[in-house]
């Protein structure tokens, strides 16, 4: 049973000790990692995936339940408690969605009778995040970018069911992010988002701020931000509505932002 995962600070790119010496991520936490391009966000989640032990370029260490993670995690991929979705992650299989999910659920399910329910749950979850629903008989490779992301997230959450899920910049795929955050919160896991998206950042419990290869701050989402996050979401929706209008050859007017008020 994993209760906490701890990051013990290392050094920045310039070799200076990290300002934040220790961060404890607790089961159920939804966390964002933010920072400018090149600030070391991907490197930080690589440290997590590696269970770094002062043996990476950052010198960080990662503990599980306050101890060195068991060697088993490292040696047996089936025991690894982390699922990672990166910007480059995709499905390569050209099987029909249903066959693919059946194969995966068949490996993960404790009892064969669970397979069907797992597939249905995964599909329902994914379809809440996409505009166009995923059809079980279409081929994996025919899914759109957004459908692919949605299914990756749903599959990692429900079928893999690992206690820790890392997501590196998944926001660009046009999935319903507010809904995603709501749904993910129903599962007791640690979700870690690398993100440039204010919406995801404000819907997280706290955000880890990075600069120059180093963790500089941990900011808890405060009451003001929490209330304000609705407006941010609204603004974001208005922006995507405008994006759609442009796409469909319409003109924009000064009324577009009226919903904000």
């Amino acid at each position, binding site marked *: 049973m994993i209760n906490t995962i701890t990051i013990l600070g290392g050094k920045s790119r310039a070799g200076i000790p990290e300002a934040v010496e220790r961060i404890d991520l607790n089961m159920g936490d939804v966390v964002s990692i933010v920072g400018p391009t090149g600030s070391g966000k991907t490197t930080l989640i*690589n440290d997590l*995936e*590696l269970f770094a032990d002062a*043996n990476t370029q950052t010198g960080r260490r990662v503990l599980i339940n306050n101890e060195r993670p068991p060697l088993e995690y*490292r*040696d047996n*991929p*089936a025991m690894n408690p982390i*699922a*990672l*979705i*990166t910007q*480059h*992650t*995709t*499905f*390569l*299989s050209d099987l029909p969605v249903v066959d*693919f*999910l059946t*194969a*995966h659920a068949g*490996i*993960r399910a404790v009892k064969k009778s669970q397979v069907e329910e797992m597939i249905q749950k995964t599909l329902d979850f994914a379809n809440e995040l996409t505009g166009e629903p995923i059809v079980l008989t279409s081929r994996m490779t025919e899914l759109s970018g957004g459908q692919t992301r949605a299914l*990756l997230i749903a*599959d*990692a959450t429900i*079928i*893999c069911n*690992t206690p820790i899920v890392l997501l590196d910049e998944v926001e660009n795929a046009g999935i319903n992010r507010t809904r995603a955050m709501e749904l993910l919160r129903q599962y007791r896991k640690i979700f870690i988002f690398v993100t440039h998206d204010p919406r995801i950042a404000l819907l997280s419990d706290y955000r880890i701020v990075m600069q120059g290869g180093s963790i500089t701050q941990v900011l808890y989402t405060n009451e003001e931000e929490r209330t304000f996050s609705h407006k941010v979401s609204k603004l974001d929706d208005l922006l995507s509505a405008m994006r759609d209008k442009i796409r469909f050859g319409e003109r924009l007017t000064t009324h577009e932002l009226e919903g904000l008020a």
Partner: protein
Amino acid sequence: MKLAICAGPATTGKSSVLRHMIRKLQAAGDNVAFLKVDVQFAEEDEIFAKEFGIPTRKVYSGELCPDHCNVMVLGDALQWAEKSGANILLVETAGLCLRCSPYVDGGLGMIVIEATSGTNLPLKIGPMLSLADVAVVTKIDRVSQAEREVFRSRIQDVAPNVKVREVNALYGIGIDPLVDAIHNQADTWDKMLLRGNPPVGTCTICVGKKEIGWQAHFGVVRSLENQNFYRGE
């Protein structure tokens, strides 16, 4: 001397994996020598010599089965590595002959395959996988967690005793267990043997007879309808 033989199809990431391993072995105080076996072109020897300042060699197998070429030269190679002051010899071989095993008893057998190659690949590569000690799965950064798990279970289906290690050879994620496997490997001994049984032997095409159709050949032949059978004296 400890020996590891690293086989796998082209561009699966053998050199990338070995590069991370050499770096970590050097940091642990080991002296590594490197041998590259390929059919007709390779430059890893020059690259690794420059990058790590280690003794390196290459051989082109040409007409020989690359896996058997590896076995032919291995005796000399171990002596060469010893003379160059190395305590670990790493061999990278193309492993193109899917009937043969490129591994020897007394050396760590590593196959490198990429998670991106489709979930049926493990079913197609024969002894190169089933006779390995470790299957190193690269490019896990490119595929979904789901495909990673399906790929892994396909490997275990055909090779239940082979240890699976998943790596991202761009970032060097997952390399430590491979370094440990070499450290835990027993030293090589005299009179080591090729692992597994070589295939039925050469056919008359292998020795230069080019006619189309089994009727023109003898020894072990096959027709479209029948399995292999023996024709001739």
